[in-house]
């Protein structure tokens, strides 16, 4: 698992690669929280290269969404593969976190 970060003005794009499970979710949380600086106005989490996520990883996504919500920073997800999309739907997270088909769509909405 790896988190790559790009900045598009005040929008931070975090690309998550690989697998997030109970064995590395703490590392995922550290990488994701660590990537989000003070001056960020919106966060787009690109899951296009995420092969697998379990409830341990969803917990981190929820924690980050809560932290950002308290700072009035928006968060959205994009480019989910079909199985990853299913997991977000089963969890109900698709109803509380905005999900876009592509990173371009997410950036357009965030910008």
């Amino acid at each position: 698992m790896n988190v790559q970060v790009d900045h598009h003005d005040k929008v931070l794009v975090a690309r998550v690669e690989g697998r997030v499970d109970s064995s590395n979710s703490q590392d995922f949380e550290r990488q994701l929280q660590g990537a989000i600086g003070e001056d960020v106005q919106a966060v787009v989490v690109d899951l296009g290269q995420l092969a697998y996520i379990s409830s341990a990883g969803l917990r981190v996504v929820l924690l980050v969404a809560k932290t950002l919500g308290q700072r009035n920073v928006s968060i959205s997800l994009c480019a989910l593969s079909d199985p990853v999309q299913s997991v977000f739907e089963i969890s109900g997270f698709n109803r509380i976190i905005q999900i876009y088909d592509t990173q371009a769509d997410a950036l357009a909405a965030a910008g």
Partner: protein
Amino acid sequence: MSANLQLRVPNRIEELPGVSEAVEALGREEGWTQDVTYAIVLGLEEVATNVVRHGGGEPGSSEIEIEVTSSDDEVRIEVRDSGKAFDPFHEAPEPDLDAEVQDRQIGGLGVHFVKVLMDETSYSREGGRNHVSMVKRRS
């Protein structure tokens, strides 16, 4: 035709990625679809993680026995451990799927995944051991 995978791993979170790899390898040999593979790897991780986190005892102090049997129409997964009695399908908290971000609690989500993604689930306590059984149909 059926294929069987049996694993015994110490009750440590770090052991679980190896379990996932072995199960995925079985899935490739048996020609599982992507959805079936994801459901089985996820179900097994969630159940085994619960065993490690809630079974009591120090990490590495006991073993988790895992058996995966793949046949033409279904995949059967058995997980046995000697931790304290815990029925994940009735004792884990129910997640509130409609709560807003700030109110949403994370507990019980793993078990919820298992209930939704598996076609059959059962729990029994046999001879001082927990036994979780899951079945995923292949079509």
